[in-house]
């Protein structure tokens, strides 16, 4: 039973990361209808920026996270302007392929800039706390708390502010949003900024638990796609719920079935779910 609860905590921490990454992905999909295959690369770049700010420039961990979030928001905007905006009237296929191009560019660029070796980001929260008799790494707790806070913050932003409402309106109907006077250009940029910033935030949180390398985003990226498909593409609660669900399935599946296959579980779930519900779990079929 201790094993179960310990794994539950692990699953929730992992789910928090998955959720944050998937949130950014689903936001861009919902608003701009772009499946951004480069999202995992943004996550990876976010981890490197945190690393550079913290280790090379000696900023504190928290400060470094802030820098990474801001820089990535900028990169997100640039990506929207340079790559996706020119393609907004092109077939969907073209944006997808362009995103693949961006992904490869960012990975190669990261290797050029920071080398291929694994990097380690130290965190001031390196201790362990005992929670209900279970030893839990402080960093893992931080991941959970910070991720949940950001998720709540984001949903408040979308529900309670006019800018947030504009994003939601555009997600529903881009042409309609333009008609009611929403600056769709600005919203598109903002969406990309938020999406990339979320990826950076997730990466900065998880980096001290793992290692930073140019390919670190690949696995997370694929998982995030699985999550938003399961949660319904464009659905924000779907991404959060899907993130936690997938992480728990992975961790518990790894525990009680086979750890070798745990990395494949996500895709097996995806294939099975879509076979029966071609539009995802939480969407209403039309």
């Amino acid at each position, binding site marked *: 039973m*201790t*094993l179960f609860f*310990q*794994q539950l905590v*692990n*699953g929730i*921490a*992992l789910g928090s*990361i998955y959720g944050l990454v998937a949130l950014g992905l689903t936001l861009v999909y919902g608003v701009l209808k772009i499946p951004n295959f480069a999202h995992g690369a943004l996550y990876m770049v976010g981890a490197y920026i945190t690393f550079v700010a913290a280790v090379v420039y000696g900023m504190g961990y928290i400060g470094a996270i802030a820098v990474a979030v801001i820089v990535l928001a900028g990169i997100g905007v640039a990506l929207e302007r340079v790559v996706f905006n020119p393609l907004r009237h092109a077939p969907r296929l073209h944006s997808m392929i362009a995103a693949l191009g961006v992904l490869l560019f960012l990975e*190669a660029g990261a*290797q050029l800039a920071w*080398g*291929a*070796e*694994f990097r*380690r980001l130290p965190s001031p929260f390196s201790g*362990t706390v005992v929670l209900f008799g279970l*030893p839990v*790494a402080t960093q*893992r707790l931080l991941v959970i708390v910070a991720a949940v806070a950001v998720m709540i913050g984001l949903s408040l932003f979308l529900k309670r502010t006019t800018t947030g409402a504009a994003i939601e309106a555009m997600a529903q109907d881009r042409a309609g949003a333009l008609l009611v006077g929403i600056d769709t250009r600005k919203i598109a940029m903002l969406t990309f900024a938020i999406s990339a910033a979320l990826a950076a935030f997730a990466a900065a949180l*998880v980096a001290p*638990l*793992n*290692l930073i*390398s*140019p*390919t670190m985003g*690949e*696995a*997370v990226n694929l*998982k995030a796609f699985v999550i938003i498909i399961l949660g319904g593409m464009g659905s924000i609660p779907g991404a959060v719920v899907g993130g936690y669900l997938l992480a728990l399935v*992975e*961790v518990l599946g*790894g*525990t009680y079935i086979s*750890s*070798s296959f*745990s*990395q494949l579980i996500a895709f097996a779930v995806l294939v099975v779910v879509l076979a029966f519900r071609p539009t995802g779990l939480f969407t209403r079929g039309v």
Partner: protein
Amino acid sequence: MISSHRLLALGLIVVTVGACSDEASEGTDADGTEVVNIGFSGPLSGGAAFYGQNVVNGLTMAIDELNQAGDIEVNEQAVRFELVTLDDRYLPNESATNVRRLLQQSRTPVIFVPHVGGILAVQPMSVRPPEFLLSAYSSDPRILEAANPLTLMIPPRYDGYFEPFVGATMEAYGNRLGVLPTNTSYGRAWAEGVTEEWRRQGGEVLGDHSVDYNTTTDFAGPVTQTLADAPDVILVGGPSQPTALIVHALRQQGYEGGFIVMDQAKFEEMEQIIPRTELEGSVGVYPLEAYTSVGTVGFVERFHEKFGRERLPTSEVALNYFGMHIVAQAMELAGTVADPQAIRGQLTEAARQLSEDRKPYEYDTVTKEGHLTGDVVTAFIQNGEYTAIPIPRRSGRGAPVE
């Protein structure tokens, strides 16, 4: 459409004609000194790029030394070496393409490949014309099992580690073994060997929780699982850095036992990430910098001069450096830079004759099967110090010498 059919018929005719054509080619010369290209196909991008770079550094270092000293003469002609590196992203099929390219474009008599997939993929090519000597850097015994007459296997084979590693840790910590290595076939083969040996020595093997060290986002899950069985010793291993993280995570969750660390992970690299105290009770490859022999000390010093203090002279750097020197020596002894068979024939003698300062390790023999061997020493970390555990020498192809 008639024309297309005719063209296809014509094409078929040319197939038969073309199949009979032949090719011929010969080596190249430079002014005064002969230039010999040394080939390398390994990962220079992707997840294993750092590893590949280490191998290249070892080779570069040896080649620079050889060229600077200018003391390799083949048939009374000075020889200059040039390293040609190609990226195969750790993909064996790319290695095969690269080897073709090296042979055709650079006419390399020797090619270094530092991963077992690539090695096994290109071994059959080495004996087809144009032949080449394959310098294999991987500890997988299957490289020798292929009985390829043009292979030089550089590192010690990993199955020699099982018995001493198991013996040392079981005695020190107890007989319950947890299994948490990386999920590559290399990792699985290691796990199989260690668990078999563990049972043979009367220990109990717990559940297998191997995970992919390269793609797992958070190791907490498998770590928790492994500890749930209350192991005394845990088998870990994969690339050094994630291995260190796993050790760290295990310690964080309160584990106090020992570790068997696969030879892919290097203690010196792990210590860059976690303190040595967390590695207490681990057996693994002896860190190069802890050796005190003349050859090693000199090598380490020259390495730091060349690549800076932050970079570590790991065994893949040292062994490939070593391998390159042996190959050059063998060329001199064989009196040819172009005949791989002849070079291969002189490897044993070359290893014996090589001067001490070019030997980072005390290996002095190349076996009939083409394996560089010698006195292999491994490390057991006890009370924060490296304790040496010698590995018995093998005689020929069979099991370890009893």
